[in-house]
């Protein structure tokens, strides 16, 4: 009986890794996912940004530079990956809304708008323009969310404050899932006067049951209700991670937490195992193929030194835009930092180019030339390339036997 042998090991627990893992597990393959910690997806707004350049994300993708990894994925796969995502999220009780044909806006806690494509249902009612009036409900002492910022940028905006007894996003979110607290809050809310307003909340309306909470508040007040994503800790990001994680498990995937890969075992052109130095003795997991979805710099997939950029697991060759002088723009807030192009160059099957390995497939933010900030394509690219990588991996495994 083989016990610690898997068909595929996924490295990285972000949107790309969990999605690729789920697709492979659904095919009946034995999948393990290893991760150092929790992914940067937890820090995200929860929205699936596909490509923000145009009103239609698909046309925006077509206009991306030729070397952008989106071009390695066919249109039907991109569409499938998003439709599949919508289906999965509905099943996991975290329904999303939106279509691939159209970008939409979500309001930020600074009062600016951010372009996204698929958004959680709790953000569906976000006003798409500046005319509608909104009434923000905030919480006493809640750090990092000041309605004043939004009011300073937006007409017809006012706010009320509720004392939840606690003041962090995480603790307010858990209180919303306590019946007594929620009922008391609703009593308070009923006394407020809303005119033609939409009601806005910082995104703290629960962790497991946000959709129901928003629905209840909306039914009670008769007004559209929406959430405004906060800076981290971000509940919508965490809800997304939790849902993807649970779905992966449901399909039979196994997760190894706190499992930083510190070594590899190889033979010829194949990687045979990844190893970590657990407490005490090295621990390794064998597999026939590997999916690298460790993310970019913040996610921990890449590390920059003074001279070079290193890929941390397999030491794959990393594409850098040029000498160090070209890595950064003078303006800190610029979207054109050259370093945004750093990453792994891959071939059509998402195998790393210029490397000997036949059984590694790469997806997500670690790919080269993504320029995620500039193109607004984080989670969308992760979904699309995860599907492509999983497909290539399945083809490889079927030929290998």
């Amino acid at each position: 009986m083989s016990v610690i042998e898997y068909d595929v090991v996924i490295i990285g627990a972000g949107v790309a890794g969990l999605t690729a893992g789920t697709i492979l597990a659904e095919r009946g393959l034995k999948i393990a996912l290893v991760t150092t910690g929790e992914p940067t997806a937890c820090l995200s707004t929860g929205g699936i940004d596909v490509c923000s350049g145009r009103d239609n994300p698909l046309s925006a993708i077509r206009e991306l530079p030729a070397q952008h990894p989106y071009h390695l994925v066919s249109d039907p796969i991109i569409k499938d990956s998003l439709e599949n995502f919508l289906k999965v999220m509905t099943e996991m009780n975290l329904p999303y809304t939106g279509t691939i044909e159209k970008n939409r806006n979500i309001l930020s806690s600074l009062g600016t708008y951010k372009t996204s494509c698929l958004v959680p249902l709790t953000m569906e009612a976000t006003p798409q323009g500046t005319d509608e009036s909104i009434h923000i409900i905030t919480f006493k002492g809640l750090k990092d969310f000041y309605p004043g910022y939004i009011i300073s940028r937006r007409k017809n905006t006012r706010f009320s404050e509720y004392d939840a007894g606690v003041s962090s996003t995480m603790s307010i979110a858990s209180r919303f899932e306590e019946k007594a607290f929620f009922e008391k809050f609703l009593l308070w809310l009923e006394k407020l006067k809303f005119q033609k307003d939409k009601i806005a909340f910082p995104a703290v309306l629960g962790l497991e049951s946000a959709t129901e909470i928003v629905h209840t508040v909306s039914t009670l007040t008769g007004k559209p209700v929406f959430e405004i994503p906060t800076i981290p800790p971000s509940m919508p990001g965490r809800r997304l991670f939790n849902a993807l994680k649970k779905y992966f498990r449901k399909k039979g995937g196994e997760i190894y937490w706190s499992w930083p890969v510190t070594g590899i075992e190889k033979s010829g052109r194949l990687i045979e195992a990844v190893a970590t130095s657990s407490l005490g003795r090295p621990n390794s997991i064998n597999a026939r193929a590997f999916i690298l979805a460790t993310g970019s710099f913040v996610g921990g997939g890449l590390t920059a030194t003074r001279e070079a950029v290193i890929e941390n697991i397999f030491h794959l060759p990393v594409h850098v835009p040029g000498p160090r002088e070209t890595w950064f723009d003078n303006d800190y807030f610029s979207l054109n930092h050259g370093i945004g192009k750093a990453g792994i160059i891959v071939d059509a099957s998402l195998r790393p180019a210029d490397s000997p390995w036949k059984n590694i497939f790469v997806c997500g933010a670690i790919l080269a030339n993504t320029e995620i900030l500039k193109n607004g394509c984080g989670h969308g690219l992760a979904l699309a390339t995860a599907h492509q990588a999983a497909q290539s991996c399945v083809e490889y495994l079927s030929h290998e036997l």
Partner: protein
Amino acid sequence: MNYEHCIRCTICVENCPVFRVNPDFPGPKQAGPDAQRFRSDRERAEDGWVLLCSQCKRCEMACPCGVEPAQIILKEQQRYGKEHPQTATHLLFANNYYLSALGSLTAPIANMIASSKTGKKFFRSMGISTYIPFPKFNFRTLRHEKKKISKGRKKVAFFYGCFINFYRPDIGRKIIRLLSSMNVDVVLPSQWCCGLPALGNGNMALAKYFAQKNAASLSNYIDAGYDVVYTCTSCGLCLLHDYPNILKIPQARKIAENTYDVHEYIIKLISDNYIKPDFREVKRKIAYHIPCHLRALEIGYPAAKLMSFIPGLECEILDDSCCGLSGSYGFKEKNEQTAIQLGNRAVALIKKTGMENIVADCGSCRMQLGGLSGMTTLDPAEILCESLGISDQK
């Protein structure tokens, strides 16, 4: 990794169970790396709130940068414990081992007192919480178990831990029979409390005392060709993580290299083709609550792996919530509300699954979840025994 590697992303804060419900605790980021920048050995420790950390280590599991907030806090707990007078509760729980030994010797009387109204009143006056019943002392501790020697080649020294020894020696006996049935020699080495309760109560000197005695005993067995096997995940974490790090035990490296979780060990036996267990059907629907310290051991979920081989067993894994008790943590009155709220949350998630029994590797998790839910709780080893037809008789 030290605190300078923290990028302040707050993922640890999102994972902190205590922070969710107790506003007095500033969370692992502030209590750990943030505050560490301001701590100095030349100044007295004044941050008493570090004692509100339950040391579940969830922050360390979540950190994408490899920072260990719980470890930073643990060190500060020791410093605080050393510089401030110990309260009676802290002293009592740090010495849990001696207390339990006394309780077991006088089991019938001790149990009667612990469950009586007067007893409970007395405990409350000491700052000890009584919202779930105390575990029952067992007169026939595991220590008195006869050594079972089969003719196997593999030899194991079983570190059973206080909970199994004083309260549930029956589970300990089952594990011994389980391993014996797999052609493994099991001996019970001389052992004391692993030291974790002492550390958790800021009593490093006592923890070190226990650790040195255990290390000497286990190290002898390892030299004689034994592997060490533990069943309590918190004992395991202390042996593997705290002995080499905060306690700086000289034999720690050797112990860590040769010590296994019991299920991890069985998987090793299967992988080495040493045994081919014939798992038979078990008709149960179980919610498998993953103890925080099992996660922290970085060995995956070996019992889940083994149970996945059992036909008919429906198992749902829950690893998002801490049970809240965290050993003696929840028994302290000032942590009572935290423990109850966390426990109820964990129970609500378990009930949502529609499963019938709760399974957990950790005795204190079982005590909390069983106490708050009224559901039957089992050790994964009990499920394995059921599947492999290892009976309950002595």
